[in-house]
């Protein structure tokens, strides 16, 4: 979409916030990408960990040994979810600075759901603790215990929708006018593929995490999970990661196809391409790891992590590239409009200032002039002329402007040793005012 079209389509173009960026643009972008990926890593682990806990406990209904697996996985969620929250603040700050207008507009349009992220996540966290600390107490009430963690899982599965809807909506100002609230924003083309892509990634990441966590030498596996061998569980974890990665072969392209074309260019295609290539390597190694003997499965782990880090890094960059491309024309129009507006503000300010000065001057000037034209012939400052001097008559009307005006219009007869003063009915109300103002200021 080009800049002319934006104006023709009358896409809303707000004005930007007229303040300097705190850091150079590239640095903010780098901070945004990096801190966002870190945040998402722990969000993945929080969602995946909770879902796996539920899954293992469900399996535990058939085979008791799975309960230990559930308990052990659940333990990791406590720290991961706290990190997910606190690490979310940095990307939030950065996106707020970089895309203030777009992000906040999307927030406002989906407002009720956006703010309800707070209570929803609080409830999910509390359910998580409740579940974690009642394995003993609710041993004989499995359905309740499972319902608790299922509740938490459902919330975790829903909240990403809100985030993704916002992130998607902010990229398309042309859609803002046609969207009414959260649900209609959710149905914009790209949201569901994004969601599937994200949730699947959560399981891939969590699978790898569990593989690592249970494989650490310091981890007393036989004591904590007596019903399984270390090899068995780790193989399952790696299989989960592999299965989820295979699913991305479907969801990834689906996401790409449904992207509105306005942000796609060759840079983006190449960036995503590199990410995909690295992912292919990771998947081959995962397959090898699953089929390897116990002591050999380990050796694929770090290469896989490295390859996926590359994938995620490039995908994260691609995501940012797309956003930058999609918004660029709009940002240009916005910058132009902001500059024009600031110009107007400046002009109005100057005009108002000089206008006020002129007005103030006019009053003072006009008063003085009128007095000179009409009154000086008979009234001097110090000395008596035809009429009494100003130093005598001004104090009489201190604070009584109305009375003074009344006198000028229609003077009375006061002093016996003076002639009567003529009335000034020909002067307009305004002129009388300014004469009176002038005199009372003396």
């Amino acid at each position, binding site marked *: 979409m080009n800049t002319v079209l934006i104006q023709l389509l009358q896409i*809303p173009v707000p004005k930007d916030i007229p303040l300097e960026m705190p850091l150079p643009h590239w640095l903010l972008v780098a901070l945004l990408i990096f801190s966002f990926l870190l945040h998402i890593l722990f969000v993945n682990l929080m969602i995946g960990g909770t879902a796996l806990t539920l899954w293992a406990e469900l399996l535990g209904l058939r085979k008791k040994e799975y309960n230990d697996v559930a308990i052990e996985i659940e333990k990791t969620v406590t*720290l991961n979810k706290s990190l997910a929250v606190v690490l*979310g603040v940095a990307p939030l700050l950065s996106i707020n*600075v970089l895309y203030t207008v777009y992000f906040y507009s999307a927030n406002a349009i989906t*407002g009720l759901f956006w703010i309800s992220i707070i209570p929803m996540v609080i409830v999910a966290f509390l359910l998580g603790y409740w579940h974690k600390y009642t394995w003993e107490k609710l041993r004989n009430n499995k359905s309740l215990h499972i319902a608790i963690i299922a509740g938490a899982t459902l919330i975790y599965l829903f909240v990403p929708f809100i985030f993704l809807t916002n992130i998607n909506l902010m990229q398309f100002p042309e859609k803002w006018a046609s969207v009414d609230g*959260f649900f209609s924003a959710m149905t914009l083309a790209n949201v569901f593929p994004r969601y599937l892509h994200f949730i699947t990634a959560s399981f891939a990441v969590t699978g790898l995490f569990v593989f690592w966590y249970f494989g650490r030498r310091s981890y007393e596996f036989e004591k904590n999970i007596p019903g399984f061998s270390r090899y068995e569980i780790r193989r399952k974890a790696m299989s989960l990661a592999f299965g989820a990665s295979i699913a991305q072969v479907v969801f990834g392209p689906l996401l790409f196809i449904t992207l509105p074309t306005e942000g796609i260019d060759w840079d983006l295609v190449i960036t995503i391409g590199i990410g995909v290539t690295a992912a292919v390597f990771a998947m081959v190694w995962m397959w090898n790891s699953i089929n390897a003997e116990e002591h050999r499965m380990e050796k694929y782990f770090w290469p896989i992590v490295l390859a996926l880090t590359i994938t995620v890094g490039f995908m994260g960059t691609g995501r940012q590239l797309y956003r930058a491309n999609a918004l660029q024309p709009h940002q240009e129009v916005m910058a132009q409009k902001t500059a024009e507006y600031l110009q107007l503000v400046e002009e109005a300010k100057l005009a108002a200032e000089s206008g006020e000065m002129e007005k103030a001057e006019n009053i003072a000037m006009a008063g003085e002039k009128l007095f000179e034209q009409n009154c000086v012939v008979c009234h001097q400052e110090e000395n008596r002329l035809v009429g009494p001097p100003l130093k005598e008559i001004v104090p009489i009307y201190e604070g009584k402007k109305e009375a003074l005006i009344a006198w000028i219009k229609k003077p009375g007869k006061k002093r016996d040793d003076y002639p009567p003063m003529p009335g000034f009915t020909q002067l307009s109300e305004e002129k009388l005012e300014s004469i009176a103002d002038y005199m009372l200021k003396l």
Partner: protein
Amino acid sequence: MDFPIFHLDFMGNRWLIAMIAILHVLINHALAVGFAPLVTLMEYRGYLARKTDLEQQKRWDDLAYKFLFVAFVITTTVGAMTGVGIWFSAALVNPASIGSLIRVFYFAWFTEWIVFVGEVILIVIYFLTWKKSNRSDKAKRRHIRFGLILSIFSWITMAVIVGILGFMMDPGNWLSDKTLFNGFTNPLYIPQLLFRTPLAMIMAGCIGLLLVAIFAKKDNPIRPKAFRFVSIWTLIWVPHVVIAGLWYYYKIPDLMIGNLPVALGTQLFQAWYDKLFYVMFGAVGLAVIIGLWTLFNSRRIPKWLMVLPIIGIFIFIGMFERIREFIRKPYVIGEYMYANAIRVEDYPLLQKDGILPHSTFVSVSEVTEENKLEAGENVFLVACTRCHTTSGINSVVNRFERMYGKGNPLNVDAMKTYMRSMHKARYYMPPFPGNEKELDALAYYIKSLQTFPRTIEGAQLNGTPAVEYDIEKIKEHIKK
């Protein structure tokens, strides 16, 4: 003006932020800053008892762990999320101001965030390593030392945040010099910090008493001791809070009211302020009474009574934060931006051209005879809804009726006269930002609200106004 307008027409937008922010402050003060040292001290108390009586040590340790458990669960759920919630709600209600603040205070917030991350990690570690630390004396000693570090860190977090807030509150600074250091040299900083510290400790004590009553059952041999322990903790901080409170109390007016140029603002402030004084001494007094009572006779005291000082202090903190907010009015950013999110600088232009032509997300951009009501509604949305609703909390209709007599039909001319000088009449309101035509439309709209009350929805339900395409122009463009 430049953001789709989020609006809650019943609760009012200010309450959304206030609720979340006050909850956050309460949890932070009581359960993080206050509880960290209280729990550490309790753990240490158990450790000291180990020589004489192992059973006792276990019970102290158990109780301390339960204290921490409560603090941990609440701070890592409600506490952490309301911290983020302040951002979310402020960004919804007043995006222009929070957007501006972030640009200028990016580093301040980054610092605050780093400290926050540190605090969360420390409390998670302190909590999760508790059980393991009971393996040996050495491990316990290390754990207690860790608790001490956590206590200091929590306090530093508060000290940093108070400094940053102090800076942002201080009108004038924003425009002249933007170094963060100012927040800490601000003459109010030290009194405020010295005041908040003992207050946090007392809050922790009051909640602690309640927790002892809940967790140490009647047959627990350390119950009376624990009561005494926590009540002494609470009472020790009382003189501090009184002295620092008085200091702070006498410091605020000369420094802050200096900014309220209108006598009326000052009067109103004084009324609030006196109330605050009584509530503070009432709340602390309650804490003292309950503290002394449990100290001398913990057996007789009913549980529900212990809830009273907690509520008292909560009310006090709520009022305290509200006054601080009030002092800031009519600005959100001192002397730079009014609470209606319009910059002071923009006023001459807007009062000349009107606000509608310069607003992006309004449904009409000019007042005409035909669209007067709709225009009035738009003006209301832009100029008044950050603080008022149509018929909910702080409803405009109500406010006008209160002035002109309940039930009397509102008079458009009288309202216009009032709104022309609303900033002079009530200093905490910004001046009316639009032009004469808009003023007229607004008054007309408010009057219509009195006759036909109706709510207005914000962008979260209504979306943003649709625009009409000029098809011909687009065709032309495509041809080219």
